[in-house]
């Protein structure tokens, strides 16, 4: 069974003349350890797919199942718990909480889940150390560079055994060097068994994925699988978005 399953998912915003069909009958499966890239033009429904997959929004139709649990059967608090324990997000503009230090941002999901602060801090420091940010752990987000902020955001997204990583244009605000570094981290997470979905406009970054899903007008129009990544971490040959 796939870790993330989206079955015939549709999303409609508004009603009547203002109705917008953001997603139409989307099916998507993501296995553990798999990196899926979602590409498509602006307004094709990429971000909507990601937010529905991560329980931030509810689909108008269809079903989302994470680790065998349908989201529709979950309460609001259950979905919040799912985000604390299972799903991690990475956003284009980092979205670190400005009042918390780097390590506090990383440990936030753990503390929200009831892990004692000192224990969560140990875990957060270990995570930052692996990302080479241990020296910056006590800095506030506005004291970090863009690349550092995104690394902190990734650490926050995967900390605490979380198994599904959802990233919306994670390198969109970064230069190419930092962008590739971010993708390396996501791939590394996949090697540990994390299922990942990355929305990107950048074909070079999509080449890191095991599978590329093309969206247009809310529909999945193509799914391609770049050549195997057995050769190790790194981009596959660029895939065409057309």
């Amino acid at each position, binding site marked *: 069974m796939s870790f993330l399953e989206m079955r015939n998912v549709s999303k409609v915003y508004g009603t009547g003349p203002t109705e917008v069909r953001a997603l139409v009958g989307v099916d998507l499966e993501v296995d553990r350890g798999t990196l899926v890239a979602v590409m498509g033009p602006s307004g094709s429904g990429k971000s909507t797919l990601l937010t529905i997959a*991560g329980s931030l929004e509810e689909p108008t139709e269809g079903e989302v199942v994470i680790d065998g649990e349908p989201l529709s059967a979950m309460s609001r*608090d259950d979905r919040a718990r799912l985000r604390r324990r299972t799903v991690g997000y990475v956003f284009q503009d980092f979205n670190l909480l400005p009042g918390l230090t780097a390590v506090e941002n990383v440990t936030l999901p753990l503390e*929200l*889940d009831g892990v004692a602060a000192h224990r969560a801090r140990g875990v957060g420091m270990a995570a930052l150390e692996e990302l080479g940010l241990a020296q910056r752990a006590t800095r506030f987000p506005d004291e970090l560079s863009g690349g550092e902020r995104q690394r902190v955001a990734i650490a926050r997204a995967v*900390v605490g055994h979380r198994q599904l990583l959802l990233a919306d244009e994670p390198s969109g605000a970064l230069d190419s060097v930092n962008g590739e570094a971010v993708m390396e981290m996501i791939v590394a997470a996949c090697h540990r068994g994390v299922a990942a979905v990355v929305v990107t406009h950048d074909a070079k970054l999509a080449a890191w994925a095991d599978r590329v899903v093309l969206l247009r007008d809310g529909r999945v129009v193509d799914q391609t699988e770049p050549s195997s990544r057995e050769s190790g971490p790194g981009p596959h040959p660029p895939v065409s978005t057309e």
Partner: protein
Amino acid sequence: MSDPLDTVADRPAHGGLPARRAMMRWAWRLLRREWRQQALVLALIVAAVATTTVGVGVSTNTPLSPYVGFGTAHDLATFAGVSSSETSAISRWHERFGPVDVIENQTVSIPGSIETFDLRSQNARGPYGQSLLALVSGRYPTSAHQVALTSGVATSLGLALGDVWREGGVARRVVGIVENPRDLLDEFALVIPGQVTQPTQVTVLFDAPGVAPSTLGSNVITPESVAQSNPVNPETISIALVTLAMLLIALVAVAGFTVVAQRRLRSIGMLEATGATDANIRLVVRANGALVGVVGALVGFVVGFAAWLAYRPSLETSAHHVIGVLQLPWVVIIVAMALAVVAAYFAATRPAKALTRISVVAALSGRPATPRRVRRTLLPGVVVAVVAFVLLGAAGASGGNGAGVLELALGFVALTVSVVLWAPFSLTALSRVTRRGPLAVRMATRDLARYRARSGSALAAISLGVLIAVVVVVASAARFGNVLDWAGPNLSPTQLIIYTPIGPYGPGPGNANASPPTFNLAAMDHDAHVIATSLGTRDIVQLETTSATLQHAAAGRSYSGPLYVATPQLLRAFAIPTSSFSPTADILSMRPGFSSLTAMQLVYGNYFDHAGRSAANHFVCPTSDCLANPTIQEVTGLPSGTSAPNTVITEYAVHHLGLTTLVSGWLVQTARPLGALQITDARSTAAAAGMSIETKSSMPTSASIIDWATLVGILLALGILAMSIGLVRSEAVSDLRILTAAGASSVLRRNLTAVTAGALAALGAVVGTVAGYVALIAFFRTNTLDGLSALAHVPVLNLLLLLLAMPAGATVGGWLLAGREPAAFARQPLE
């Protein structure tokens, strides 16, 4: 990337304490980092708590504490004199409870003055009364022929240390100057116990712990029983005012926290995306509110306490008693601080709930929730308004004298709630009225209606400020407009009255046959003229009185003021020609509307010997001693002071009713206001001649009360507006960006802010005035004496200032202070 976490099964469902700690930490960090955004609410709380600390310190220490007479005792008994029963009661208490401290007072007059002091026998080393005595200089008396005086008594009697004072046939040497540190106005002459032969009051101090004072006698009190018998004390009033102030602050704070929450919308979205529950989100905002309250309360207390330390020495001088550094009503201050925290917490509750209704995706994108079309009903507002009307009516019907205070307080609380409930509907109505107006008007009023979360609370706060001002203004006008129970300053600063022993009210009906006090009128007249000359004036008028006075036939109404005779000399002094009034007029008065009063009676002779009431509860008016419906004519030339001859009986009435006139004093008028030294000299001269004087008291005029209330109301409303208008407009800042990008000039931006400010002010003025009049009508309609006619005196100018000038000022201020181009057109960053 490994971590040592093993299982999640034993973690609390909602994160438990660690999650709450994390949210509290973030709230605290946000407050530290973004305190400027909350400076308004912080400043309001700091100001309120600081003002409360100083205010209650002053208000509770300025008047004497009702507990001051206890010394260090728990029980206090008072007797009018000493008889065998009192002596045996004191002996019983002594046997049962141990030491007692007996303080005997005998009233002694200061020659030439209406003032008195006490001849006091007290053990200076008594077990409980020691704290009521302090030695200023010299020593305490130790023998029957020694006395210690307060400095006031020493000055009045012209005595100094070493002098001999003769009183009641006893000569005593002054050995010390003393004071009562708990009451510096307490004037007395201290002698050793047993030296007061005819005490007029005896105070017994003792400790009877655990014994109900009522079981010892009706004259025994304890601090607890005093507090229970006096619910409307400065502490209670202070707490009521603080509660009202915190309510106003909470209303403004709702708008402030809403805007702060909106600015953090994307952070909140991120928090939810990370797995925060609704409870976590609410906790962040509420914790932020509580922290603002705590910080504001602590800083406010520190500021207030510093101000108290600085002002305390001046207060000691003006309050006439020693005030300790920590002699503050701590309960009130702690309650005020707690109220600040509670107000801020609850003010943050509403935006906290609103935040959890915004979808995570909308929050992440920084989009505020689209205003929902909520069909709210006016019914709750109407119901609460009716409740307020009924409660205030019950308060009005209670007849005063302390009754009806609870109904009055609850009525105002209900009225406040009603104003809060009505405010959003007023905004909606305004937007409908202006829907065909110019662009700026249309947009501004529409935004006010769309974003009622903050504009509604700001409007409610402004309305309450205006409501308070309207109630004070109209109620003051009603009180000062009562021509029967005349109120106001007693005299002008240039007037002085010298009284003979008869005094201003004459013998009064019922004492007509009593022998008038004998005194040397010629000598007093001479001395009165000497006083006038010393004051540099020849404007001196002899005041004559009779046994007659005025009364209203209805029981419960009372005429106040002296009734002097309109002698030719008095009329001349005020340039009133006899041709200006009817030769058959009985009464002349400057009180506006006095002549139109019905059921007046001029009573004289031995009226009170047989006065009774009719079936209609009206005073009877036998023709032998009473003139029903005397002819009253209004004359503007008479002075207005309550002690001045503002209402006089004509010589026609004096002759017609066969009244006898007596000289009761002289009215002296000077060109310049009288100085303290002149008054002191005049008092000394009058005292030496067996007379007394009266000069202007500190009673404010109706105009000063009404004008001050109006000014405070306007400043309060404008202050709330100034502090909240930025918050109100911030909601529509994106619209402003669009307008600017579309080419709107600063004029339109200025107009938007000006209209927003003006509309809120005007609406607040109208709602506040209407609510104020609702309260007044509810209160006065049940008043059995005057009913709604008491509200006939409408302070038109002051109401116009509130209704027109205040909104105009807000509009102009908004226009002048607005118009700045938005600093950034980009979406607000999270960090």
